């Protein structure tokens, strides 16, 4: 493998507190402090002028749909979408068909990753068998098979007793638990946020309280057991406040927010566009602002996309019947730059921290830094380039994006995994 020499880029590495223009080197897939004159002559050179060189982005919440739903996405197509979005490490959710509640399914996923993946794809396993919330999945075997966390994402464990035992048991293996916080008794038939907009549209509402209750439950269980619980895609203002107080009390909880929840509100649903339907749903403006404030003061730890592909024919139907979920990987960076950096005055390094070092830290992944000796996982982007996103021309197998047709500012130019360019791929 040739060495890599990125010259005169603005190198932003939150983990090593670096933000300066300079050269970035990699040898044998590892970040190096310098290259010898001979190595430089043979190195793959990338002109970094005008570009930001950041650690490859880390997304701890994606759905790659394999096995069982490969009409929506595969590890091959999903990892290409990740590469196109500047992501070099992604963590995929276990709600596949069958669910990843056994070591065999994890092995299947890891085989597909080895064969097809362009970026580092790490599996999670289920908390409960079949994600039914009734009996614990074989968490120890899942750990041994290679999962980095357990979650019943999409289906929240409703039994407090089962959740308590799950976190106690998983903590024995050092496995974090990620929870999709939703009291299902309050969201039966719900398809959007409960509020003025759901009243206007005549759609069933999903109240913030259903999230707040489970976030509170998880804070209490974490406090009681000492186990780490990570709250997925927080969408409610009160949930942000509950997590803020828990952290102030030293309780070991972490939380993520999606690009769509920081950028959009339920006002976007006025035309019943199913590309704005996801779970948890888009909330009110006060919630959106609270999530941004939570990211700013560290209450919320990271950005995660909840990249959730669905085919056109699944999404193109009555709002009530369309599945939840939107794409995220190919648009996350420009959306975060727009909302956090341009509109809410986050420093660039802070915004990138939320997409690199912080998410990696939540799951103890060795990713998200450009420090010498780390894997040469790099995202090179032009922070100013404006471009129009065409979801149908994207790399994901699906095109269910709320950003389709929108002009975005900030564009990934090159993505590098272990010193190899994975985006753009040379025409073969």
């Amino acid at each position, binding site marked *: 493998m040739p060495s890599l020499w990125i010259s005169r880029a603005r190198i932003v590495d939150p983990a090593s507190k670096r933000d300066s223009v300079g050269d970035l080197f990699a040898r044998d897939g590892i970040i190096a402090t310098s290259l010898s004159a001979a190595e430089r002559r043979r190195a793959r050179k990338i002109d970094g002028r005008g570009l930001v060189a950041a650690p490859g982005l880390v997304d701890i919440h994606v759905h790659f749909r394999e096995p069982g739903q490969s009409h929506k996405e595969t590890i091959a197509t999903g990892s290409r979408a990740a590469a196109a979005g500047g992501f070099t490490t992604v963590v995929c959710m276990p709600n596949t068909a069958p669910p990843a509640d056994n070591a065999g399914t994890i092995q299947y996923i890891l085989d597909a990753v080895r064969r097809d993946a362009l970026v580092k794809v790490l599996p999670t396993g289920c908390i409960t068998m079949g994600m039914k919330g009734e009996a614990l999945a074989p968490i120890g075997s899942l750990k041994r098979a290679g999962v980095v966390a357990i979650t019943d994402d999409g289906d929240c464990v409703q039994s407090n007793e089962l959740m308590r035992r799950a976190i106690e048991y998983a903590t024995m293996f050092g496995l974090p638990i990620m929870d999709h916080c939703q009291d299902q008794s309050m969201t039966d038939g719900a398809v959007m946020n409960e*509020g*003025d907009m759901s*009243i*206007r*549209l*005549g*759609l069933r509402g999903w109240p913030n309280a259903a999230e707040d209750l489970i976030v509170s439950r998880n804070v209490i269980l974490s406090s009681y057991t000492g186990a780490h619980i990570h709250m997925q895609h927080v969408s409610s203002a009160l949930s942000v406040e509950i997590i803020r107080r828990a952290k102030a009390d030293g309780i070991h909880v972490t939380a993520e927010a999606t690009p769509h929840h920081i950028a959009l509100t339920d006002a976007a649903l006025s*035309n*019943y566009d199913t590309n704005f339907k996801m779970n948890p749903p888009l909330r009110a403006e006060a919630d959106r602002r609270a999530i941004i404030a939570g990211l700013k003061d560290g209450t919320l730890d990271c950005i995660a996309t909840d990249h959730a592909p669905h085919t056109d*024919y699944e999404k*193109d*139907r*009555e*709002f*009530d*019947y369309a599945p939840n979920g939107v794409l995220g990987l190919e648009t996350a960076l420009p959306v975060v730059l727009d909302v956090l950096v341009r509109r809410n005055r986050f420093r660039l390094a802070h915004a990138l921290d939320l997409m690199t070092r912080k998410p990696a830290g939540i799951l103890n992944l060795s990713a998200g830094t450009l420090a010498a000796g780390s894997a040469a996982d790099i995202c090179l982007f032009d922070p100013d380039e404006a471009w129009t996103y065409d979801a149908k021309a994207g790399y994901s197998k699906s095109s269910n994006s709320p950003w389709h047709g929108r002009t975005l500012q900030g564009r990934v130019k090159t993505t590098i995994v272990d010193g190899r360019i994975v985006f753009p791929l040379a025409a073969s």
Partner: protein
Amino acid sequence: MTWTRRHLLALEDLTLAEIEQIHATSAAFKKILKRNVKKVPALRGKTIVNLFLEPSTRTRMAFEMAAKRLSADVIAFDAASSSTTKGETLRDTAKNIQALNADMIVIRHSAAGSPLYLSKILDIPVINAGDGAHEHPTQGLLDTFTMKEHLGSMKGRKVAILGDILFSRVARSNIHALIKMGAAVTLVGPSTLVPHGFTALGAEVSHDLKSALADADVVMLLRIQHERQGHRHFPSLGEYTSMFGLNKTRASWLNPRAIIMHPGPINRGVEIDSDLADGDRSVILEQVTNGIAVRMAALYLCAGYQPEHVISSTE
């Protein structure tokens, strides 16, 4: 002013002038319905498909009657014996109906937003005959038409809508129309079925029946849709009736000349005393009759005709 809409999807979208145009056109058609020969040739050679994916008696028959009075051919879509039971999507069903050369679709669907969705994927006019808990625009139009017949201008009039507001498309369409017409709308019923959020639509929300009915010019009752709410929104029909059912005593709180309305179907003895439903102040069956004229107007205008044409032909 000319009528420019091809679809009738929601009264929220309509201007006051458009609502008045439909009312004026409805009044002209109502005159025609009183003639010996009740049929006009306006839509001769056109085919209207009634795509009813949810049960309906009144609305479906009124649309069918209206289309026939306009000389259109009508095909009623029977959901139970159709390909939707074989998994055909709404898009494919609607595209096939269009491919069968239908000129207009009237849709009733349990999923809110379905008529808007069809209007985006079809080239032919789409009329909303009720979509989930969203809107029922022709019901709102016929209700306000009936109110105007009895009360004249609705400006400053007090209308109380009583019952299950949360799940009611009829309530939403009436709220939008009445607010535009200058009426004061009070929504009343149990707090679980009349959430405060409705104030965002411009209506008042009350849980006190007496003050809500006091001096009201119109009381509109809505059916308690017990099948949709389970037992979570109120304890029992009996408790509902005792707290919110309209009986003689409560009706005496109304303005003496007030009218009592109900879009049907009625649960006698639940939301309204049987005697009141059949009494002098009840205009429930007039609403049904007016439903034909209003739907004639809706079909006629969305087919591309102007209100003046029918009005001049009746004068």
